[in-house]
């Protein structure tokens, strides 16, 4: 049996104070070359018809009630596509005085002030997100492809030998300075540094 929820994704586009870059790409993705409609994605003019909200922009303060309204109007199961650097993490304005700063900060407000749980969210980074990145997101939603991006964490420890080498060089250098061994350690208020 085909899962029709994956075969047909209707999207309501919501600009929450974006620069238009992502918005244009959201439109662009429906044009002949990327052709989003291949995956059954359609732009709809009302959140009530939609399965997902394509959210662009860092969510300015003036837009908060309106975004809440749209999310409320979305029938279950709800999906939010956070498109672009602004929606994913607030972008370049993440900490200014009129900006909420990305979808996660917004979800906090949603929880605190409106008592709603955050819906399923897909993060689509990019500035602006390339149309192909949006197709990739649709591919993940429709189970055609698997998510590639994973958290990466590297811990770099130096070899002990290496450390010793560095320390020896420096100690030697310090040692060559005749005045240093005489220094008496005094703790107190610092005077003007260089």
């Amino acid at each position, binding site marked *: 049996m085909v899962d029709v*929820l994956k*075969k047909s994704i209707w999207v309501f586009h919501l600009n929450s104070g974006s620069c238009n870059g992502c918005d244009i790409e959201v439109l662009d993705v429906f044009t002949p*070359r990327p052709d989003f409609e291949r995956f*059954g994605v359609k732009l709809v003019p009302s959140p009530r018809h939609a399965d997902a909200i394509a959210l662009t922009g860092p969510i300015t303060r003036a837009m908060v009630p309106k975004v809440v309204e749209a999310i409320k109007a979305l029938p279950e199961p709800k999906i939010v596509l956070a498109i672009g650097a602004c929606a994913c993490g607030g972008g370049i304005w993440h900490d200014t005085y009129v900006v909420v700063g990305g979808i996660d900060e917004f979800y906090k407000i949603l929880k605190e002030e409106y008592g709603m749980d955050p819906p399923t969210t897909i993060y689509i980074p990019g500035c602006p997100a390339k149309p192909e990145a949006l197709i990739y997101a649709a591919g993940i939603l429709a189970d055609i492809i698997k998510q590639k991006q994973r958290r990466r964490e590297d811990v770099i420890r130096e070899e002990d030998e290496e450390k010793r080498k560095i320390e020896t060089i420096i100690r030697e250098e310090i040692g060559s300075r005749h005045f240093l061994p005489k220094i008496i350690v005094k703790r107190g208020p610092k005077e003007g540094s260089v």
Partner: protein
Amino acid sequence: MNAIIAVIVNVIFALLYAPLIDGVERKIKARVQRRKGPPIQQTWYDILKLFKKEEIMPKDATKSIFVSAPFMAFLSVLISYLFVPTILPGALYFYGDIIVVVYLLAFSSIAFFLGAFSSGNPYAQVGANREMSLAVMEEILLAFIVGSLAVLNRSLMLNKMFPLEIKVSSIILLAFYLVVMYIASARVPFDIAEAEPEIAEGPFIEYSGKYLAMYKYTIFLKRILLTSLFLNFVLPENVLWRTIGYIIGVVIIPVVLAMIEAHMGRMRIDQAVRFMKRLSVIGIFAWVISLFGW
């Protein structure tokens, strides 16, 4: 008995086929825009998905009307299929059934209108208003057609009209009917009531889930109904040839209409109404010559 089996087959055919041909139309439109387009079963997916979704009741809606309107629209079009044969010839005929069909179609428009007004959304009301002014004009045009047909066949029974005799008036009438069919199936440039960029799909804006699906389904069914009616007027009585002709026709006509639709810009409501007023002059002309029996 045969008639009843035919009716059942016809209704099932229409129900299955209507969303499918919309998928084909989308594919065709995609082709003329030089893109790949969705798979042809996409409209089916859409409708099934909508049935799975939750329905949200708008705050300002008048609930009883809001909920029953989609059913009224859907059922009125579905009932019309009892009188208009599709793939198999044979339906419930009785005296005056063509008037019933026209009324049922009008009723579905009124249901749209009622549903939109009960939703309490301003966009929906703008859309409903536009829908209504279009529907009134459509009714006038259809009235001319019914009038001419009645005069031509000296009957108001559909089976007496299938197929139409070839006359000057009947050819004008069929051409006229094609235009009216195009208008009534809410295609660009006459999709003013549902205009996406202007009023955000007007009448349906507050609907979600299965109610929305029902509305969409109604439109598809209406399109196939009007196409079937046209094909019945032109196809021969021989069952085999009729069936072959029907199958070809019911594919070709929507495809051609989709191509036309793709190359049109939307009219303003006043421009559309003016256009339809001009059309009604042709309607009167057809009626007059049918009175002469040409």
